[in-house]
């Protein structure tokens, strides 16, 4: 036999016999060997002592690349066309981080797959000549490559560990990849790409009616609806009226009932008495501090004003009087008007 490189393949039924064979070959100095197994076993990994797989480096690089792509994509495109949306800064990092995160994962995963394929030299369509279909069922294979003159010793070691079969593999047949298979994969990819390009060209040209004007009207717009049941009543905003307009047009909608009177009295004491005084004569405790004295509300010119006028002054304020609309709702203000009228009547009767 020639002294070139030759390969021997032993087929094993039992895992422990295989492990023994691996160790014995190692001890005898055979370094170039490997295993076929139907499943990954930690014992095999330990016996072969190959060290950690470099796939994780691919993952790391892919993930970093993904994060960088995320940042560049979001920030650069936002700066390229600076359009403020939602009142947020042009470079708004928190929402961009979501995109960064997703691209980190995506690129990391794709790089992991790429790293795996590169490291195990896949994909390929032709199997190695030393592969046996039983390896995917329940048999383990151990191949060892050595110089021609060492092959007998290796054969003895395999037999001594109760290999089921030991045979020599013809190395000439062991080609790394078939060119035809490569061409086949390439062909499939090119055809797929062609189909995508043609579809991308044709699809937008299909005569689908895309204009709403040409589509039948299924549901015309509805008329304004009455308030829906179960709706939450919320106070609307008042229309701002000019004083003159208000005094002519506004009618007092609140009856001067005892309840309205009581409520108005209470509010009057809180909001009006400090300046206008308890009898509305303009002599409240704060009045002394003011340069312009507060009006006497019982004087004739005040009594003659309409309810709408008084109501509007309370809400909008007067020359020096501050507006009270913030603290008093419309209903509150009408109650105050009702109470004030009773004060004026009292003062007039006296």
């Amino acid at each position, binding site marked *: 036999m020639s002294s070139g490189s030759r390969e021997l393949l032993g087929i094993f*039924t*039992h*895992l*422990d016999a295989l492990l023994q064979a691996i160790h014995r070959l190692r001890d005898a100095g055979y370094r170039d060997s*490997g295993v*076929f*197994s*139907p*499943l*990954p076993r930690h014992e*095999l*990994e330990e016996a*072969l002592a190959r060290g950690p*797989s470099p*796939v994780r480096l691919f*993952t790391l690089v892919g*993930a970093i690349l993904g994060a960088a792509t995320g940042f560049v994509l*979001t920030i650069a*495109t*936002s700066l*390229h*066309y600076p*359009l403020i949306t939602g009142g947020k800064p042009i470079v708004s990092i928190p*929402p*961009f981080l*979501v*995109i960064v995160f*997703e*691209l980190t*994962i*995506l690129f*990391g995963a*794709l790089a*992991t*797959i790429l790293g*795996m394929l590169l*490291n*195990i030299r*896949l994909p390929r*369509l*032709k199997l*190695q000549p030393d592969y046996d*279909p039983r*390896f*995917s*069922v*329940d048999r383990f294979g151990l191949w060892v490559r050595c110089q021609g003159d060492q092959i007998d010793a290796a054969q003895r070691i395999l037999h001594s560990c109760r290999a089921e079969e030991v045979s020599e593999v013809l190395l000439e047949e062991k080609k790394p990849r078939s060119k035809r298979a490569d061409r086949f994969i390439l062909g499939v990819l090119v055809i797929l790409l062609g189909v995508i390009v043609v579809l991308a060209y044709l699809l937008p040209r299909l005569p*689908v*009616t*895309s204009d709403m004007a040409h*589509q*039948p009207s*299924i*549901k015309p717009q509805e008329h*304004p*609806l009455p*308030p*829906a049941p*179960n*709706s939450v009543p919320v106070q609307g905003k008042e229309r701002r009226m000019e004083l003159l307009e208000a005094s002519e047009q506004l009618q007092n909608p609140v009856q001067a009932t005892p309840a309205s009177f009581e409520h108005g009295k209470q509010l009057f004491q809180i909001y009006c008495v400090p300046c206008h005084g308890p009898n509305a004569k303009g002599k409240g405790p704060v009045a002394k501090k003011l340069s312009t004295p507060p009006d006497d509300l019982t004087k004739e010119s005040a009594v003659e004003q309409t309810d709408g006028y008084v109501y509007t002054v309370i809400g909008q304020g007067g020359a020096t009087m501050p507006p009270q609309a913030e603290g008093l709702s419309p209903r509150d203000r009408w109650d105050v008007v009702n109470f004030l009228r009773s004060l004026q009547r009292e003062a007039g009767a006296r």
Partner: protein
Amino acid sequence: MIQLSYSQVNRDLLKTMEPPGKVYYVILALDLAVLAWGFYAWTYQLRTGLGVTGLNSPVGWGVYIATFVFWVGIAHSGTLISAILFLFRCRWRNPIYRTAEAMTVFAVMTAALYPIIHLGRPWRFYWLLPYQQRGHFWINFRSPLIMDVFAVATYFIVSAAFFFTGLVPDLAVVRDKAVGWRRKFYTFLAQGWEGTDREWRHYSSAYLLLAALATPLVISVHSIVSWDFALTIVPGWHSTIFAPYFVAGAIHSGLAMVLTILIPLRRIFRLETYITPAHLENLAKLLILTGLIMGYSYGTEFFISWYGGNIFEQATFRYRIVGDYALAFWIMAVANSVVPLLFTVKKIRMSVPWLFGLSLVINVGMWCERFVIIIASLAHDYIPFAWGLYKPSWVELSVLAGTFAWFFLWFLLFVKFLPVVSITEVKELVEPPLKGGVDP
């Protein structure tokens, strides 16, 4: 440990791929008929416009978006079983993970249809992709809808890659047994896998890393889907609890769907040796956990609406309980948070018919949850003057049926073209053949 030999595992698990009987073809034909009807309804919608759906102001998101959220949620549990339980070294997942992972991929494929169907002009879906549009102008990365595109696309690519990676060693098994055109087909799919130590070393490393990447991904996906809602100011949506609440709900619905699929599967293919009552029991126990989280989330939503003192929020939640969609609300509340508690009774948890029945109930409950969250909030959004009710039209229901048929079509093909139980990973649970004793 399963007391079987490696070759027995191969024989049993390849049996599922034998040529199917008449019943299979009848089911396939029915499924295709429903799919065709759904497709017809969609083309009708395309020709006439979105007016044929029940969508109108104010309810602009209806059954389509609700079912999108539902299917994305279904997908999550597959990743939980295949990736998260893998990282936790829960070996019991090995026989069931293939089916769960297939469910993930098919569910995302189904979910991804909905946003496209929901578009008035679906041929312009590519406007969502990042490329420079007319006028130097790019998509708005601040919009949760764009984040959604990134999340769902990443999720589909990564889970499909993870699924296929796990399949390759099994495809080699199928290739070695196949003859004729099937041999060529599986030779192509198996990519030249031989099971060498070099292959296993890099493969195991890659598989672990993919699982580690899929785990945070799955949590991000439904969080981002929830932000489609939570980042608006619609009462009932604008809530910080939405992300964890949606993720928990997703896993809840997915676990129920895994049970719904696994139980007929093990019965039809006689896989009782591999998918044991213990597996189903473990899934039921997980359902108790997620059911409790659901109950807690519902409670928190109501508590915060009361405690927060926002009258609009309170009105929305009152409307959910007693309003127009109260029926869906009560189905959701009972089916998702009360029904899973039945699994605390061991007899129910161990009984296959109960598990199957209750898993269907939870599936319905989770669909109702998506419906209630989306539609009941939109129907009473801001101005009482503009409130309105939504009822799905026949077009929407037909499309809904069609997309369910689409999901099951992929599943029907899956059970006959791929091994439904991972042969390699089941072998990892089997005691390896040992001769015993060491030779001198």
